[in-house]
């Protein structure tokens, strides 16, 4: 188990994959490569086809058009058992009439592995996951977290070429989820097995994935469900479209429309027109979508701060104040939109709803999108 997966170079490739139910498209034109040993996360809101895509890899869902290959072999028509994949389900899907030990060993028994080998593997997996105390219990007698571990163990003992995770943590409470998140991540790094992980939670995606594929429902996506695929930081720093910009990052990026004249941006809430940094290629029309992350909006407290402000200064009324402890989120109404200020305030400087405040937006870290195509504007490096 320590030598890292099957080592067979289990990359996964979607080439123009479509999925139709009757006449309705669920997945359109999905092309994506998952590299050997990579931890890939499919993330998106419900209905975006992320689970369907995962189930296609597993062989539980047929492919209407296009090609899916695992380790260079086209698997479109291969049944699940011949794909050398193991899957962890959201509902855990433990066999309720078997003990934990039988659950974990079942897949190996089915494959007619010698009993001694099964025993070693089960022992190893249960040691890794801390399952030893419950090996002889039935799933009914376990807590949610323990069941999740058994489900992981069942996947682990198989030593498959690919691990598939279908929202495995969404039934756990928040604290357990954070713990398991780190644990699954560590396990995957240690084994080096190609893994695909489906979640609707962008935090989970950002923290776990080597790369993330953001999918959108076809109604919003148009040509293909795949909105962007890249490392967590690529998605955070350079979202390719408004959908990804809003989806990645918590709290989400605020995107609002501003007027444009040359390279100057104007908006009723701006104290003065702001000049777009030179690296951006100006858009065609006279409108542009401006995106700002709360962490790049700094409150201007006191006259001296206001005087020193260099960037884009916005002014508006405070709507609500959310105190999270380590930071405070202030929702500021800027006329037709809300901007979030996400910097630390002290007790003395905490604004109240109704106050008019000023804030400085970091111009260098603005995101600009074309209002017509919703795509990121071109920028030089």
């Amino acid at each position, binding site marked *: 188990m320590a030598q890292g997966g099957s080592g067979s170079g289990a990359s996964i490739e979607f080439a123009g994959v479509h999925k139709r139910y009757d006449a309705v498209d669920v997945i359109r034109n999905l092309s994506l490569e998952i590299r050997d040993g990579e931890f890939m996360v499919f993330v998106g809101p419900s209905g975006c086809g992320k689970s369907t895509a995962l189930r296609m890899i597993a062989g539980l869902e047929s492919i209407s058009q296009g090609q899916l290959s695992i380790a260079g072999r086209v698997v479109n028509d291969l049944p*699940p*058992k011949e794909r050398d994949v193991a*899957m962890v389900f959201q509902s855990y*899907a433990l*066999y309720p009439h078997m003990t934990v030990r039988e659950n974990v060993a079942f*897949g190996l028994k*089915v494959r007619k592995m010698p009993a001694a080998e099964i025993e070693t593997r089960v022992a190893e997996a249960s040691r890794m996951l801390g399952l030893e105390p419950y090996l002889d219990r039935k799933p*009914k007698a376990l807590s949610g977290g323990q069941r999740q571990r058994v489900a992981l163990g069942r996947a682990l003992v198989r030593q498959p070429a690919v691990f598939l995770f279908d929202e495995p943590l969404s039934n756990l409470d928040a604290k357990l989820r954070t713990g398991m998140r780190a644990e699954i991540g560590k396990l995957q790094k240690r084994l080096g097995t190609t893994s695909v992980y489906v979640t609707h939670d962008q935090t989970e995606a950002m923290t776990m994935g080597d790369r993330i594929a953001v999918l959108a429902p076809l109604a919003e996506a148009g040509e293909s469900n795949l909105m962007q695929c890249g490392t967590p930081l690529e998605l955070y720093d350079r979202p390719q479209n408004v959908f990804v910009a809003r989806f990645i990052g918590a709290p989400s990026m605020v995107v609002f429309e501003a007027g444009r004249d040359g390279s100057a941006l104007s908006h009723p809430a701006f104290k003065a027109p702001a000049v777009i940094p030179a690296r951006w290629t100006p858009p065609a029309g006279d409108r542009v979508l401006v995106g700002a992350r709360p962490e790049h909006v700094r409150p201007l407290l006191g006259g001296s701060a206001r005087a020193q402000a260099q960037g884009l200064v916005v002014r508006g009324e405070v709507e609500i104040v959310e105190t999270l402890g380590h930071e405070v989120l202030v929702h500021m109404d800027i006329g037709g939109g809300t901007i979030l200020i996400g910097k630390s305030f002290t007790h003395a400087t905490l604004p109240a709803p109704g106050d008019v405040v000023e804030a400085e937006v970091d111009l260098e870290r603005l995101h600009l999108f074309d209002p017509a195509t919703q795509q990121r504007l071109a920028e030089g490096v």
Partner: protein
Amino acid sequence: MTKARTHLGRSIAAHAILITYTLIALIPVFVIVINSFKSRKAIFAEPLALPMPGNFDLVGYTTVLEQGDFFQYFLNSMTVTCASLFFVLLFGAMAAFALSEYRFRGNLLMGLYLALGIMIPIRLGTVAILEMMVAGGLVNTLTALILVYTAQGLPLAVFILSEFMRTVSDDLKNAGRIDGLSEYRIFFTLVLPLVRPAMATVAVFTMIPIWNDLWFPLILAPSEETKTITLGSQVFIGQFVTNWNAVLAALSLAIVPVLVLYLIFSRQLIRGITAGAVK
């Protein structure tokens, strides 16, 4: 206080109703059994008296065991019931699995067609069935009875089991598929154990009418070698004279096997009903 009292009152009322019902249901059985141990005179003189040294008589049992081949009748009934039950459960469960698990053209129609048999009594087709059995040379064989009873039991079995199988989680079956199980093994090792309570229900509902049936044994298999216990008991009911001792003894004996089978299945049944509640 008042709350506790109404609870107690309600509980007494509920139990009174249940006990009354139980008594009504059990008294005929009780009367049959006690009278089977009495002399003919005592049966008519005091039908409700318990067997006492004065009226105790085993003549019914000795007649039954001497006359006719009662052991053979028993064996026939057992064979027919168990075989029919086996086939009903096997084919019923398989059909139910196909209907609940796979999306195919005509799935719904097929389900309705299979459920139609619940509403149309199979006895309406007796003449056609008899003709078929004659043509197939199956008259006076147990096979004929097993075939008819399997057909009779299937509709209800398919109906109940397919509803239950829909409740088995898809993830579970998919986990099995990924673990490398064939569809047959998913059916036998995952789904069947999980619908065991439903199987027990179907078994009980299927078994009792088969064991008690007089109609088809009389028509399809009345020969001495293939008589079932119900039909066998009829020899003691004559047009002019009825040997009550023998009839009651035969009936008492006939209750035993079906009672044993019922006890076996009902344990499963109760376990199934309480499985969710007791956790």
